[in-house]
């Protein structure tokens, strides 16, 4: 069974990721039984049937908007955000807003071009699960979560900036 990083540990992953093959349409595609992460378009096209299932997650492409999920974020157990490439940073803002604005409390998973050196930032904006690229060691990737022991600014993980959180010294009186 494939492994992912979830809540700072390496765990087995029993979710399947559904992608539309060429020629398949969101309306017509058959969503298999079992735990499935479906494309946003499939969710939107088949909401009526899919929302009755408790084993459905949704994945969002970096050029899509999570707001269209509406109230569904309250009941979805998992939302994944795709990083088509390392350098596409839209997923960071999508994740932050899912947590901070839309109140999503389930598993928020980074998928796609996900490597060790992005994980620190990703966990800060609200991701708690990482499907790291299978061609790289997941044990090494885990180290990426602890690159820094403190941070200056707020994000989802830290609601208080350093300047409000700890006493920091002013300059000593000049002589």
């Amino acid at each position, binding site marked *: 069974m494939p492994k992912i990083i979830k809540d700072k540990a390496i765990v087995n992953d029993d979710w399947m990721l559904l992608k539309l093959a060429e020629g398949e349409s969101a309306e017509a595609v058959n969503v298999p039984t079992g735990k499935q992460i479906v494309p946003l378009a499939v969710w939107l096209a088949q909401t009526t049937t899919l929302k009755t299932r408790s084993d459905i997650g949704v994945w969002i492409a970096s050029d899509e908007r999570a707001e269209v999920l509406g109230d569904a974020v309250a009941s979805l157990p998992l939302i994944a955000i795709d990083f088509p490439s*390392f*350098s*596409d*940073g*839209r997923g*960071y*803002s*999508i994740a*932050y807003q899912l947590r*901070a*604005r839309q109140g999503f409390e389930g598993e928020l998973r980074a998928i796609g071009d996900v*490597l060790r*050196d992005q994980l*620190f*930032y*990703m966990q*800060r*904006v609200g991701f708690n699960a990482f499907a790291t690229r299978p061609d*790289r060691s997941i044990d090494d990737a885990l180290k990426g979560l602890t*690159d*820094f*022991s*403190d*941070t*200056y*600014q*707020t*994000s989802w993980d830290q*609601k*208080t*900036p*350093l*300047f*409000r959180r*700890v006493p*920091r*010294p*002013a*300059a000593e009186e*000049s*002589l």
Partner: protein
Amino acid sequence: MYRYDQYDHQIVKERVAQFKSQVERRLSGELSEDEFRPLRLQNGLYLQRHAYMLRVAVPYGLLSSTQMRKLGHIARAYDRGYGHFTTRQNIQYNWIELEQTPEILAELATVEMHAIQTSGNCIRNITADQFCGVAADELADPRPYIEILRQWSTFHPEFAYLPRKFKIAVNAATEDRAAVQVHDIGLNLIKNASGELGFQVLVGGGLGRTPIIGSVVREFLPWEHLLTYIEAVMRVYNQYGRRDNKYKARIKILLKALGVEEFTRQVEAEWLHVKDSPSTITQEEFKRASSYFAPPAYENLPTDESALQTLRSSNKAFSNWVQRNVRPHKVNGYAIATLSLKKTGVPPGDATADQIDFVANLADRFSFGELRVTHEQNLVLADVKQSDLFKLWEELKAHGLATPNIGLLTDIICCPGGDFCSLANAKSIPIAQAIAERFDSLDFQHDIGEIELNISGCINACGHHHVGTIGILGVDKDGSEWYQVSIGGAQGNHSSIGKIIGPSFASGQMPEVIGRLLEVYVRDRIEEERFIDTVNRLGIDPFKDHVYATPIKHGAFAAGEDAHA
């Protein structure tokens, strides 16, 4: 100046360890070059034509003498004995071995320096007026705000992979010396009608392929909201900025596509979510940051300038230097001295390790141990006693740092160009040198007066050619190097984008092209008019007519060779 506390030290130390691991994984092949590239770029490491280039951050251009000595040491120990000061007030080294970069960063960390976010598609080093805190025309010292902004932007998790690089500049003076109108975000520190401090916020200025003057998106932002407002701008940009074409990815293109009203509406709507959040700057934090920029222990000096005037009248060379390179200080008896890195024969902005050490010593002796880097690629001693100016000048002269050309023709802004940079279409340093040699006469330069000659080796415009009174852009035509000339650009309060005068020229023609432009100015100027005023009054036609009137012979300088490689 700002000093690191335990948190700053810890964060920079952890960055050094993180980058060391990334370099090791690259060297072992675990990371491919494609995977390593965005990582090294976020740490200022470029792969250039001949070697790696490392760009070290100099936040808002301010350095201590200790830091300066470390920069000299790095030039000597890890490079070829010199460094290059840049138009973002940073310093870069052109001959760096990848294997040695973690060691260099560890050395920098010991003097509270780093290379974080000096390149890559993230928030870059924030630039400012080089005369912060000492300029007579300044409303208030902007450095405490910039330092708070610097910390906020350092490793911001959400804005590290933006559509494109992001540059912020801050000005607090009547005369804008920070070029805020041509930055992604430009901030003017101002007072509102009730006398409260805040910022006028401009967004979407920039140079590069599509030069645009920034638009005002907010006339007055109370200072405590600085971080949350910029967070809102960044979030809109990160989501909606174009990512399909890197030439259309800067925020200026998004702003133009949406229109300033719609863009502003989106920013303001986003800001409502984060306004008054804990990122709102507290009075205590502002006070803490300000404490690091308290004025040094100035002496109570007489206002009498007669001694200086006597020296000036008996020594023309000194007088020229004072006229061009020294500016009034807000404190009686002190002066601001600019050290020119534009001596003819030296690439603009370059300084040798010996010069770097020497300037560090001067800073200790004459200027409370601090100095600044200007975005015109010169150095500044900001707190010199007027009575020390003559001695300072004599010492600078002996080290080739007293060229009295600040703001004149040979004070050229120039990118590293094709000699070093793999993006360049053409060389820029040899063009700068050929022009400087042709117009080396100081009497001639003083007669021509204020003029900004800016040279970029490609459309990325690191040499700010669009805002040069005369701008030169290197272009590639069928594999050979050509130069396009524009005139009428300006930075500062009356920023404008220069207009191209016509077909481009070969490198050997460039000194004569500049000569002909100057001939028109000398012929047509009235009274105290500067070159830019004459262009604004007459338009570009008389210049164009004269430059293209007869064929220009190709000169013979060695622009075709890797003279500086």
